[in-house]
């Protein structure tokens, strides 16, 4: 747990350093792209782009997690649709995120909305697959005895099934959030304002320094998010909640 917390701290410090002391890295960036006039990305502040990026990811992935868990709860109760839901969840994940992004453009136009929709749809699937597996994986004898002790279906769900499925659900949420951090950057190609902006600008203008500035911050953000989930799982284990099976 302390190892995870210390890694978390290191990533946070690195991310803050990249944002605050961006000008200090100018010599390194000039060495990367000796031919270009401007090596520092200054069209927008990296901090503002980070904020936009986090907002987009938080909204889309957060909503995706909530909707996916609700769907998983419904299909594990009304089992008629369970096979369909698990199949969609597994097949959907083989779909490349860029394709989802591009498909969203014709329906809502350019900007943040198609990115939001694409991230939401793509984020649904890992959480849904894991939530179904987690809820379905709760030992039948435990559910049986919960019911026989006189718990209502609602109490069984809230006090037994969801807490026991939580580690598996969190593993799905981890995938969703980490992927969303990476995928949101591609949103810049269709007009969303994200940390992908410097990367795209760099690619168009053949400016490696721009690409590096965007990519480093995206990478650090992804590491930070991933490590936060790691820390959360460690913390839950310490609190005595069951680890993932």
């Amino acid at each position, binding site marked *: 747990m302390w190892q995870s917390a210390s890694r978390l701290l290191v990533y946070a410090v690195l991310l803050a350093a990249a944002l605050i002391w961006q000008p200090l890295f100018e010599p390194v960036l000039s060495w990367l792209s000796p031919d270009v006039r401007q090596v520092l990305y200054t069209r927008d502040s990296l901090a503002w782009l980070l904020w936009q990026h986090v907002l987009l990811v938080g909204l889309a992935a957060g909503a995706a997690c909530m909707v996916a868990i609700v769907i998983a709860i419904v299909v594990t109760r009304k089992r008629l649709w369970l096979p369909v839901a698990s199949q969609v969840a597994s097949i959907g994940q083989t779909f490349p995120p860029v394709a989802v992004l591009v498909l969203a453009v014709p329906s809502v136009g350019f900007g943040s909305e198609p990115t939001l929709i694409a991230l939401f749809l793509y984020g649904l699937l890992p959480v849904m697959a894991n939530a179904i597996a987690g809820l379905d994986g709760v030992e039948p*004898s435990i559910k*049986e*005895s*919960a*019911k*026989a*002790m*006189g718990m209502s279906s609602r109490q069984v769900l809230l006090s*037994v099934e969801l807490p026991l499925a939580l580690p598996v659900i969190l593993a799905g949420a981890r995938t969703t959030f980490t992927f969303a951090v990476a995928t949101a950057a591609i949103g810049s190609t269709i007009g969303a304002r994200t940390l992908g902006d410097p990367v795209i600008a760099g690619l168009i203008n053949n400016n490696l320094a721009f690409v590096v500035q965007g990519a480093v911050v995206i990478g650090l953000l992804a590491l930070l998010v991933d490590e936060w989930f790691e820390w959360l799982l460690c913390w839950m284990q310490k609190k005595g*909640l069951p680890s993932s099976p």
Partner: protein
Amino acid sequence: MIELSNVSKYFGGACALDNISLKVPSGQLCVLLGSSGCGKSTLLRLINRMLAFDQGEVRVNDKNIAQYDPIQLRRSIGYAIQDTGLFPHWNVRRNIALVPSLLGWSPERTEQRVSTLLDMFGIAEHEAKMPHQLSGGQAQRVGVARALAGDPDVLLMDEPFAALDPITRVSLQDELLSIQQEIGKTIVFVTHDIDEALKLADQLVIMANGCIAQSGSPLALLKHPDSSFVAEFLGGHERGLRMAKFTSVRDLCSQASPKREPFITVPPDMSVQELLSLMLLNGCASAQVVGDRPYGFIAIEDLQHVAKC
């Protein structure tokens, strides 16, 4: 009191329980014995409405269970199963407190009740542990304590000791018997272990193919099986040895000193089954019975009276 009248249950077209009538008086421990698939667990699960039945009537404490709200009914009936069904994310104390908290008891009353049960089952030192930290025997004690937590009149137990090693199983059986002496619940206990059934039962019900083959006291069934099925089920030729377990040497010994040497010395409350085993082990045909005073002697010829005891 539990009363089943003409209860039938079908799974699809197959008849799982066929016109069962059974009465378990208050404070009695009724054991349902049978091989797997005979319907004993199905019968048990009808009583707390975990399963619905197709015909007949079940009454608990003189009230038809159809008139209860199923959730209220289950809260008023204890339930212990082979897999314990303990919640792995709750510690021992919280697991036991489940039914009291569902019943809305005050925290003080719940605390007190849980502490009483922890002491009763000798698991107070494990109260803060999680279920995966417990041995099989400890987990099952917690399971039974949890079943008793709401102070139910009726307790249903579905092969609770079947997964335990023989030594732990016997000690849990002994504990159950001594606790039952104290609390006098109406218990329905399902098992496929004949010795466990004979040991625990006030009333023994032997089931086969969804019907009751015979019911009565263990000794009555051993002495007078109605059918060859029951006789076979209770051990065939070894039925006599099981019967000998119900008689103590005190009841058979006489003052006449043995005609033969050597003899062994046994306590008066030893069962005739054990005596016979000791005779076989020691190669002798007679024994002296000595307790707080000398009781007399017992010879192998005296064992023929076991059937009449």
